[in-house]
């Protein structure tokens, strides 16, 4: 569709003008972060510093109790003697004073003392002896790992305090540290006096060497968090605009007027989209500048070597990387705003969008995450990982470009969806449901098919993560039968679809089976060739392939069971899911070639590992094509099962799948062409194709 730039510019300029005159926008996006937040942070910082200074400089009162009270006092005296002569400042002086108390516990409860030093007599432990004094710090259960085990035969200092009072916690902690250090000094002196030949501290030296540069270390720290912070800014900044932009207009009644002008829906949406992106970026810029002000005021600590990690060139590159993210967020926010009937309702919808939107930004925190995985196909998450890589100086350009394209593609797709949404009558009418929603059936399933498959993919990923340690047979049963087939049954039931039509459960013409016989080896070798080709551009490490082979093809499982679980079950249940439900849900929305490609791509994405994407997508597209040509799912089922079985046989017989003679690929291509010629000659058109 042609966009008339004067109209788009007029719409965009007016959007901005209205937004910048909106007190809500100014208050929440500019005044609040630029004035109120720094004031609050400064006030909070001053209060905390004053409190810390008080705790640092006060003299703590304590009581000494228990049968070893005299030993405790001696240890305290030694500690004071060790600290005071060396202290150069007032703050490092020994600031503890003993209070005489008959009921120390009561005094601690009342606050007249800060902690108790209780000297406990030696408790002999079987088989253990010793004479060291032990400080048993902590009584409250905090920091269990710091609590020392009592040494047999040694008396113990128990520091009793109250964690619900800052002064008690601080004083007891300082005293524990001081006593521990005294004990260490005493131990060293003791060892020396008994003739220990070297300094105990020199017994074993442990040294670390970090090969990463300072820039890389700083880049990792920054790269993990920057997307999360920026996403938060973009989402909150964009939401203020997006909510007003459609839901606000709907509430004021101006949307109806706007839709009756000669501006096209796409022009209106593009202008609104640009408005959201512009304001979101402006607010992000303001907030980022604000962050730097906080850093300047020492309200926020900056990662070490920050300047080294973020060069001007990096800033430009990061801006470019985040552009599709801002565009995608703007589209999603506009769609959300469009779904709401009022400003208030849109605000309610915003919270879940914010939470879901932040999840992909958390991906860089996952250990060992790499762009060379399925993550590169996940919008926003892929940019987050790419940014982390860029900041650590690891430039995997093909994957960075792919990540950018995927997120930009998602932004374009959601923008188009938004433009289609502006055509929706529900935008103007008060009716909650339209004809399609009221009647249900295939038209409604067509509308919902993407959300079903997105949800199913998410569930599969999560469940697979939980069951990856289980037996591979159980994993496959859960994935294929419970999840995929369960989802198929749910979809059929929810939309009252006829299983025969939805799953293409029709017998094909007999000659089709001959075509399948040709297609099985032809398709298998072609998919291998496609894999080799993809591997040439995006090489997969051998370790990844071997690891996958070991986890999926364990030697402990009988071969017949391998055939059952890895050939027959996928052949049935994956076909019902993808060439059945998915194909049926999309067949009236996409033209046949696009339909075949899309079903193939979705099938590839479901196989999660990036190196499996290309061959499985290729096979998936071929299975979709045969289903469309024959109006039957059975040929695809047989082809799929037989193709997997060939792979298993090849593995069992240790036939190499790589390095085939080029003539093999030509022969495979010929067989595939013959197979499709047979399918075409014996075709039974799939009904309702676009």
């Amino acid at each position, binding site marked *: 569709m042609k966009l008339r730039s004067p109209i788009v510019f007029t719409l965009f300029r*007016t959007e901005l003008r209205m937004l910048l005159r*909106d007190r809500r926008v100014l208050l929440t996006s500019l005044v609040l972060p630029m004035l109120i937040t720094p004031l609050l942070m400064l006030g909070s910082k001053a209060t905390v510093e004053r409190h810390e200074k008080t705790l640092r400089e006060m003299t703590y009162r304590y009581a000494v109790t228990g049968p070893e009270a005299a030993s405790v006092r001696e240890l305290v005296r030694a500690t004071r003697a060790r600290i005071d002569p060396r202290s150069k400042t007032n703050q490092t002086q020994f600031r503890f004073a003993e209070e005489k108390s008959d009921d120390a516990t009561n005094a601690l409860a009342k606050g007249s003392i800060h902690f108790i030093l209780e000297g406990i007599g030696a408790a002999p432990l079987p088989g253990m002896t010793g004479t060291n004094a032990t400080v048993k710090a902590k009584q409250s259960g905090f920091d269990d790992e710091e609590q020392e085990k009592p040494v047999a035969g040694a008396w113990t200092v128990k520091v009793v305090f109250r964690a619900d009072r800052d002064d008690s916690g601080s004083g007891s902690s300082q005293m524990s540290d001081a006593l521990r250090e005294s004990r260490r000094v005493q131990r060293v002196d003791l060892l020396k006096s008994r003739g220990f030949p070297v300094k105990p501290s020199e017994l074993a030296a442990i040294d670390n060497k970090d090969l990463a540069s300072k820039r890389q270390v700083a880049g990792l720290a920054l790269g993990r968090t920057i997307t999360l912070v920026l996403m938060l800014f973009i989402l909150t900044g964009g939401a203020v605009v997006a909510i007003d932009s459609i839901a606000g207009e709907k509430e004021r009644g101006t949307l109806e007027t706007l839709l009756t002008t*000669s501006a096209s829906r796409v022009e209106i949406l593009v202008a609104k989209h640009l408005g959201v992106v512009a304001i979101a970026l402006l607010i992000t810029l303001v907030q980022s500048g604000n962050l730097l002000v906080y850093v300047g005021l020492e309200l926020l600590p900056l990662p070490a070597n920050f300047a080294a990690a973020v060069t001007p060139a990096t800033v430009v590159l990061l801006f470019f990387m985040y552009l599709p993210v801002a565009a995608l967020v703007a589209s999603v926010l506009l769609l959300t705003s469009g779904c709401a009937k009022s400003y208030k309702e849109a605000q309610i919808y915003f919270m879940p969008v914010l939470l879901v939107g932040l999840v992909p930004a958390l991906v860089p925190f996952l250990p060992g995450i790499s762009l060379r995985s399925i993550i590169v196909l996940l919008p926003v998450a892929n940019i987050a990982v790419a940014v982390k890589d860029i900041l650590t100086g690891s430039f995997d350009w093909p994957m960075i470009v792919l990540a950018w394209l995927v997120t930009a593609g998602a932004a374009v797709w959601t923008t188009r969806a938004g433009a289609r949404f502006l055509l929706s009558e529900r935008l103007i009418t008060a*009716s909650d449901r339209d004809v399609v929603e009221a009647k249900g059936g295939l038209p409604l399933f067509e509308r919902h098919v993407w959300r079903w498959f997105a949800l199913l993919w998410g569930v599969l990923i999560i469940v697979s993560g939980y069951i990856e340690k289980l037996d591979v047979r159980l994993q496959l049963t859960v994935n294929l039968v419970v999840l995929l087939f369960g989802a198929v049954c749910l979809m059929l039931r929810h939309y009252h679809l006829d299983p025969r039509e939805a799953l293409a459960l029709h017998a094909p013409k007999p000659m089709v089976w001959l075509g399948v016989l040709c297609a099985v080896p032809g398709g298998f070798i072609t998919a291998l060739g496609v894999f080799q080709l993809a591997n040439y551009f995006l090489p997969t490490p051998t370790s990844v392939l071997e690891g996958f082979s070991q986890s999926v093809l364990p030697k402990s499982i009988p071969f017949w069971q391998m055939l059952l679980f890895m050939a027959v079950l996928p052949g049935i249940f994956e076909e019902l899911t993808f060439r059945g439900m998915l194909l049926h849900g999309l067949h009236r929305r996409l033209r046949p070639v696009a339909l075949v490609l899309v079903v193939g791509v979705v099938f590839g994405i479901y196989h999660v590992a990036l190196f499996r994407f290309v061959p499985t997508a290729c096979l998936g597209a071929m299975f979709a094509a045969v289903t469309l040509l024959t109006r039957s799912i059975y040929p695809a089922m047989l082809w799929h099962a037989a193709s997997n079985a060939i792979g298993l046989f090849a593995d069992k017989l240790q036939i190499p799948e790589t390095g085939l003679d080029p003539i093999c690929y030509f022969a495979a291509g010929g067989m595939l062409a013959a197979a499709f010629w047979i399918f075409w000659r014996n075709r039974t058109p799939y009904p309702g194709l676009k």
Partner: protein
Amino acid sequence: MTAPVVVQNLAKTFYDESRGEVQAVDDVSFECRAGEIFGLLGANGAGKTTTLRILATILKPSAGSASVMGHDVLTDPEAVRASLGFSSSTTALYPRLTARETLDFFARINGCPKAQARERVARLIQRFGIEEYADARVDKLSQGMKQKVAIARTVVHDPPVLIFDEPTVGLDVLNALEMQKMIAEFRAEGKAIIFSTHIMSEAEKLCDRIAIIHRGKIHACDTLAGLRASTGQHYLEDIFVHVVQDSAPEAAPLAQGAATP
């Protein structure tokens, strides 16, 4: 010569959670000629707004066809919208724009070049007598002033067809009269005007032809004189009741008319 607005067998069905299918517009046909005010008279929920929204391409017809200046609402919606000015029952103005900015904005997005838009806006401000508050933000204006701005916004790009959906709702008598005067002036300029109302006196006074719409159907369509002759009633109120009650055996009290979603 084809009339600027032609509606043929138009139908629109909505689905309601509790009532199922609701026929908001049912086999509606009419024409609106240049220099004519065509009135759509009906109770609330009769199907007037739905019909007008189909003409403005906001809703799609379930059946039938409609065209504006020869452009079909389904196949050429942008050309349809470029040919009409639509005024909804609320003023529906942007509160944070001034009156001048509002007019300029609507002129530009309806395709007027910058200079032409500026010239038209200045002329309309003068014509509607809104010079004093032309640079005040719309949310500071009174209801009558807002209504004037809304009407000026409807005609700012000089469309040949104007649609007014209950434009006098919420106005006091003086403002309503002024509104009627303006609409009559547009007729004199040769524009085809569709005027929807449930106020009988307004229709009686303004409309050249009146279609009585009830439960989505047009039950009578004629000049006032023709309606008087065919029903034997003098006052439009009596004509309306007569037509509605006689029109269908299942006729029910007006308050239960088909709802417009």
